[in-house]
């Protein structure tokens, strides 16, 4: 086991996991001295009827001041500013954020403004600017993937300036995360697959990147095990409540793992794919994950080999010679993508050239690849990748991922 000379691990979130965890919200919020929450969500979550379930679970034990469902798919500075004003106007004293990464990031942004009594969110960008505890925030994730409910980071976009602002502080960690499988029960199979592969990418990257540590490793390994054991079953039987709870738990564990280790080139390339081509993040992660491992293989072969155990189980691990385990682990992830592709009727993509929008247009063309590679060079996660990456390396990797062919490892530069 790799034990670094120095590492930090922090997860102060109270994680409440149960088939009826939502019913605990009033008790938890009252114990924090708050009873007038703002419920924050997006239109998709509202339309899926999930807010009705949350409100039903709260059962008039709290005085909900307002339900705001205006959060866009990409968290937005203007919305944060506007909703902070609504928070004050309605006399709220806490936030219950019900949704995916964007809703949770928006909630964190609002919480900064209302807790600091500030007007300008820009003054809190960067790391460690916040110096005091914020107002109570309860996170209720509705996808089993992002792990935002246990991360100390928020990304909020200023669409006017075309900027994404990063906020990092332990004070951004929600007070409580509510993991209730009712929130993910209605997710369609292709979204279940994409979000679970997002969690898988968090766990796998947390395990092989430079900032790994024994505590993040433990969370990462368990998350991978849970995903491998339950994902395909849940895709085939979406009403499997135990499986849903296991996937939600895995996503939270993967979130804890990567926020205390880091992610690397898979996320650097995935973020760029998302910003240039507007692809769903989970799909990018699923496709890029085996390529990221192939690229780093010569630097972290032992770590990748260790992943074979949670990915494939004891029997396959024991039957595979040590020197083949890393490649077998990568093959297992590719195989999982193939199974998911088949199980979702082809909607879970296995390469970028096949991804189409609802009108049947290709979302990623070969012409876009150089811009994606250039954008990735400005992504901070690239620092934590074990092997260095330049523009040509990024381009080579996404070209292979676009075609759906394995990376030609003889072309990877080694120092």
């Amino acid at each position: 086991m790799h034990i670094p000379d120095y590492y930090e691990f922090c997860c102060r979130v109270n994680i409440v996991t149960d088939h009826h965890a939502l019913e605990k919200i009033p008790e938890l919020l009252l114990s924090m001295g708050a009873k007038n929450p703002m419920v924050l969500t997006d239109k998709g979550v509202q339309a899926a009827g999930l807010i009705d379930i949350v409100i039903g679970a709260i059962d008039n034990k709290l005085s909900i001041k307002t339900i705001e469902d205006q959060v866009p798919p990409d968290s937005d500075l203007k919305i944060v500013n506007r909703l902070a004003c609504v928070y004050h106007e309605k006399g709220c004293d806490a936030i219950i954020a019900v949704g995916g990464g964007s809703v949770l990031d928006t909630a964190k942004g609002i919480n900064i403004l209302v807790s600091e009594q500030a007007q300008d969110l820009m003054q809190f960008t960067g790391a460690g600017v916040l110096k005091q505890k914020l107002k109570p925030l309860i996170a209720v994730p509705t996808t089993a993937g992002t792990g935002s409910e246990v991360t100390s980071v928020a990304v909020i976009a200023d669409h006017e300036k075309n900027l994404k602002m990063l906020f990092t502080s332990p004070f951004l960690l929600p007070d409580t995360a509510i993991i209730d499988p009712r929130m993910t029960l209605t997710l369609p199979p292709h979204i279940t697959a994409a979000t679970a592969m997002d969690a898988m990418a968090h766990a796998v990257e947390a395990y092989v990147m430079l900032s790994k540590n024994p505590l993040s490793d433990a969370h990462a390994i368990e998350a991978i095990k849970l995903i491998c054991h339950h994902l395909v079953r849940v895709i085939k039987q979406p009403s499997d409540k135990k499986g849903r709870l296991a996937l939600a738990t895995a996503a939270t564990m993967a979130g804890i793992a990567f926020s205390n280790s880091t992610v690397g080139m898979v996320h650097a390339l995935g973020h760029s794919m998302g910003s240039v081509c507007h692809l769903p993040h989970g799909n990018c992660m699923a496709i890029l994950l085996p390529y990221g491992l192939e690229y780093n293989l010569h630097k972290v072969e032992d770590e990748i080999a260790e992943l074979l155990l949670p990915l494939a189980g004891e029997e396959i691990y024991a039957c595979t010679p040590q020197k083949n385990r890393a490649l077998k682990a990568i093959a297992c992830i590719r195989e999982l993508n193939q199974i998911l592709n088949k199980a979702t009727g082809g909607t879970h993509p296995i390469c970028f050239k096949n991804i189409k929008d609802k009108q049947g247009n290709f979302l990623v063309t070969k012409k876009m690849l150089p811009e994606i590679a250039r954008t990735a060079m400005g992504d901070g996660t690239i620092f934590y990748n074990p092997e260095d990456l330049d523009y040509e390396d990024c381009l080579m990797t996404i070209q292979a991922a676009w075609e759906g062919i394995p990376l030609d490892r003889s072309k990877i530069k080694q120092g």
Partner: protein
Amino acid sequence: METFIEIKPGRKPFQRIYLGIMLWFVGKAIQAAARVDNEVKKEFKGMPANYTFSLGAFPNGPYMIVGKDDKEKVRYLGSNISKHHVDLEITLKSMKNLFVLFTFRESTPIANSRDRMIVNGDLPQACAAVRILDIVQVYLLPKPLAKLAIKRYPRWSLKRHTVDRLMVLIRTITGI
């Protein structure tokens, strides 16, 4: 109650002098590489006019500041951080961390992954600044030391390894 004497940490004069010299050298070398090396020129071209960045140790330095003016000329701006507006600050959490880094016992990526650095500023520019620092380290250091400082020793052309390196070293020392 007895009065306790406050124990102040040692000033570590040797470390401070060593780091001051190293930072001066790196700062001057960035200025030189920006005139000689195409990759460094390209990285600076991507930065806005009058952009400045610093590298140093929290809380009292030492620091080095590099910036480019509105005529795209890159200059080493000295070590006094209070005299300049700095757009991007790359700060090691202590002088000891910076000393470990500059004695090549820990590479920049490892220092970063062990949470020893604070980066304050725009992230894409921070990535560019780190790439510039990597290139400059390859110019300044012999290969075995450079390999300890960066992730991957680059495969450069013979001209870049010899002529360009010599030019960077001459310009660093003479300040031309």
